[in-house]
């Protein structure tokens, strides 16, 4: 790569940019760029971070020209969502809305119209923010992350993908190709709610995703609950899920789920809210989200 040849003063030069046309080309490019290379999807996190000096990539490898990463396929097996598909394309897709309403809402929440033309679910996940809006939904939908690198492809569950604030399982030179989500079973639906003090252009103080499956009698057969922004990564809350399973999603069950969310949340005090406040809101949003998911699931039985 040209970077290696610029001599000692290359840091003084402006950063470089390439846009590979295939996964293989991207793998090559990243290898050449070494530790100073970073992949670029929408850039709505990365460019902001570069501007404020938080990151300083010397080579940007753009992932928006790779057909595999720009594909959104829905089949009987489920969803294959390319890592670089822009948010706008996702939430304007009627099948997405019908099959994964919660995830689609989460995508719709990201940024503003301008941001949504660029921002991606891949970027949202790989950025590693504990507050990323799509991640709780990916957890409750049991998404699988398909990763490419010089050693070939590997698959990692979304629940294991993020390892800490800004940290993921990605090794140097690896990148996310797509996210796979199974087709929803009969009587299943999801929902996502986040709390922000404003109505948009804000970062979740708490996010809560719920996925439920109801049987024909309205009894909850399966459930999954995930919270964002209340721990170093988004977390699955088993206790909340088990409070819902076997219930008819009556108020008592919802309250138990809320309490479990309150207990599971381990937020910090920061500029976006106090710890106690976040735990309270985690409980409230878990209940509201479960109510929404249940309503949708009832409509599907």
């Amino acid at each position, binding site marked *: 790569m040209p970077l290696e040849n610029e001599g000692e003063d290359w840091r*003084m030069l402006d950063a470089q940019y390439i846009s590979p046309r295939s996964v293989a080309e991207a793998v090559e490019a990243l290898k050449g760029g070494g530790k100073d290379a970073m992949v670029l999807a929408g850039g709505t996190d990365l460019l902001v971070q570069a501007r404020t000096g938080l990151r300083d990539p010397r080579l940007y490898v753009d992932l928006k020209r790779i057909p595999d990463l720009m594909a959104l396929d829905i089949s009987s097996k489920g969803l294959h969502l390319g890592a670089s598909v822009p948010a706008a394309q996702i939430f304007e897709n009627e099948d997405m809305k019908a099959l994964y309403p919660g995830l689609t809402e989460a995508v719709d929440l990201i940024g503003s119209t301008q941001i949504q033309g660029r921002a991606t679910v891949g970027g949202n996940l790989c950025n590693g923010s504990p507050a990323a809006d799509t991640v709780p939904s990916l957890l409750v939908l049991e998404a699988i992350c398909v990763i490419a690198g010089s050693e070939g492809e590997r698959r990692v569950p979304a629940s294991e993908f993020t390892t800490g604030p800004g940290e993921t399982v990605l090794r140097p030179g690896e990148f996310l190709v797509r996210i796979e989500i199974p087709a929803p079973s009969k009587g299943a639906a999801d929902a996502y709610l986040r*709390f922000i003090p404003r109505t948009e252009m804000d970062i979740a103080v708490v996010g809560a995703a719920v996925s439920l499956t109801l049987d024909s009698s309205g009894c909850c057969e399966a459930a999954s609950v995930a919270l964002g922004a209340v721990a170093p990564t988004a977390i699955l809350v088993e206790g909340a899920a088990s409070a819902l399973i076997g219930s008819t999603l009556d108020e008592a069950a919802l309250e138990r789920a809320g309490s479990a969310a309150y207990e599971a949340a381990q937020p910090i005090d920061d500029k976006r*809210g106090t710890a106690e406040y976040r735990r309270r809101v985690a409980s409230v949003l878990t209940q509201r989200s479960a109510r929404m998911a249940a309503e949708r699931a009832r409509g599907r039985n």
Partner: protein
Amino acid sequence: MSEKKLKYVGTRPIRHDGVDKVLGKANFGADLNLPGMLHGKILRSPHAHAKIISINTAKAEALDGVLAVITGDDFPPPPSGKGSVEGPQDFGDMARNVMAREKALYTGHAIAAVAATTTRIAEIALKAIEVEYEVLEPVMTLERALAPDAPILHEEMRAKGEEPLPEGPTNVATRTVMGFGDVDEGFSSADVVVEREFTTETVHQGYIEPHAVVARSISDGRAEVYCCTQGQFMVRKYCSKVLDMDPTQIKVTASEIGGGFGGKTVVYAEPVSIVLARKSGRPVKIVMSREEVFIATGPTSGSHIRVKIGVKNDGTITAADATLNYEAGAFKGSPVMAGMMTIFSPYRMDHVRIEGFDVVVNKPKVAAYRAPGAPMAAFATEGVMDELASQLGMDPVDLRLVNAVKEGDTAAYGPKFKVHGFIDTLQAVKNHPHYKAPLGPNQGRGIACGFWFNAGMQSSANVILNEDGNATVVTGNPDIGGSRTSMALMAAEELGIPVDKIRPVVADTESVGYSDLTGGSRVTFATGMAVVEAAKDVVRQLRERAAQTWDVSVDDVEWRDGHAVAMNGHADDHEPLSVAALAGSAAKTGGPISGRASLNARGPGPGFATHICDVEVDKETGRVSVLRYTAVQDVGRAIHPSYVEGQMQGGAVQGIGWALNEAYMYDEKGKLQNPSFLDYRMPVASDMPMIDTVIVEVPNPTHPYGVRGVGETPIVPPLPAVAHAVNQATGVRFRSLPISPPRVLAALDD
């Protein structure tokens, strides 16, 4: 006041600068690039309070592509003594704020600057500058600043006005007391007395366009500056003071401006770029980042205010007493005086006492922000009034009506009020459907009033008649709120030609007479007066030219609807002459025609507003949503009603943001935690309902069209109006801003 029917004033033409702005063609501060231009960057203190022991720039200077590195040593000594203070500005402090000397007084304080061939090299050079600090304890709150063992920001500071004057240094720059009557006597005759304390946090104006400047040094020591500012003459004067130059050695051109709200009424990077340009011999551009805007440009004061008001059972105020503490930031000069002068001014009272303290803390020096000092003061007074109304079982508007100042009443700060429409705004609120509309569960409604003085001051205008009959209206005031089109409308009315035949321009400091900056809601009033005078000057000349053409006396020529009309028996002999005809023949009748006026405008006329706010509170999350909002204001006369409504809406929205979510959040070391729009939570468009406006027009007799200032008054009522609405929805009185969700939830628990 003439009752003549107006043809152009009061209409809503598209603004002259509108199309360029919509198409992205307007040039803002950062848009100018000059051949050979360098990029400047400023090294900022990482400490809120520290002595600067040494600065070593050698490594930065040695870098390829770095053409100049400067520190405080490259500036003349900060001005002191005669001529170093003018109104609220102390140029010695300003010089130290522009570039730190002995001490860094806030995180973000400028310590050094570089100019390099690229921004990246400039950034690398900043990192190569070595600064040794002796870190001191930061003073981040009023409480800490006033504590007896508080660290001192300025060793030479003594509390001016404190009796007796303390011997040692303090963080109180000034104590001021005003009032009349005997408050003890007043309170003793009251039936109900309410005394409360209120706090507000540091908030920023939040203009979209960061500060940007390009400076060029010319061989004879002169400098040319292009920047976004609220006053090109202000930049000229302040740079001349900070750099010890004659004002006329500096030419300043104002770019289009993406908001100011008072924040662009002082200089920051402008003198720095001049020094860098001088040292490097190249033009230098400095563009602040959003973070720099937050950490290093003037927000407005955090405040602590105590208000006590006594009333009779019928609501009549018997006495009022207030103590105001305002943070000035790192240097003296908070708007506490304006807070004091506005705090009780909407209401008539015989006994009043107001005490104010200007207090320094380790935060950026405050700058003007829309009605500086008044919103916090209104938050306190109106809060007490609202509580009094409920204790008396009175409608809150009625309580105001009982006490509202009228023409001839003495304001709590001294002068007598001239005619104004405060009571009209209260009546308009009572009669507005919004005031009576039903509310749902968890909803509440609040009203509050606000007062602002408005300013007059110095303005100049040239009206140039061109050979095609079109006119150019030249003023020296950057257009931050649609003022260009308002200037054109008044000129159109005088000349009698359509507004699209008039081109209003904002000129540089060498192309128009001195004009004070755009601020104090003064431009449509004061500069408008100059434009009207200059246009009348043109009309006088047009009548003379017609008289000459017709060989009649000028007294026999009248100006009517854009035409010179022969009078007094000459009407039948001469067809009226249009502006275009007279302009076309000007060469033959004596040469080009232009008018000019320069004036110091008096009598801006007080601004009063009353706002109604409805909110809904989510009691599980503490979130407050504004459902409906109506702003009613006496504007004198709306020259361009859309821009008047825009000001009323904009002021209301900024006030709502201040009330609900905006606040500077510092850590214990004095580092700002939220220097971005992501975490400094200004409202976004979708947070707001359409802000309904009601324009009340009680003409200001001192202005030819009745204008009074409009832009600042509307930010005064929202802080209390929101708080009162939340009170009605929740039963809780919020006396500390912001009324953010965690605070609401915590208060609901108690």
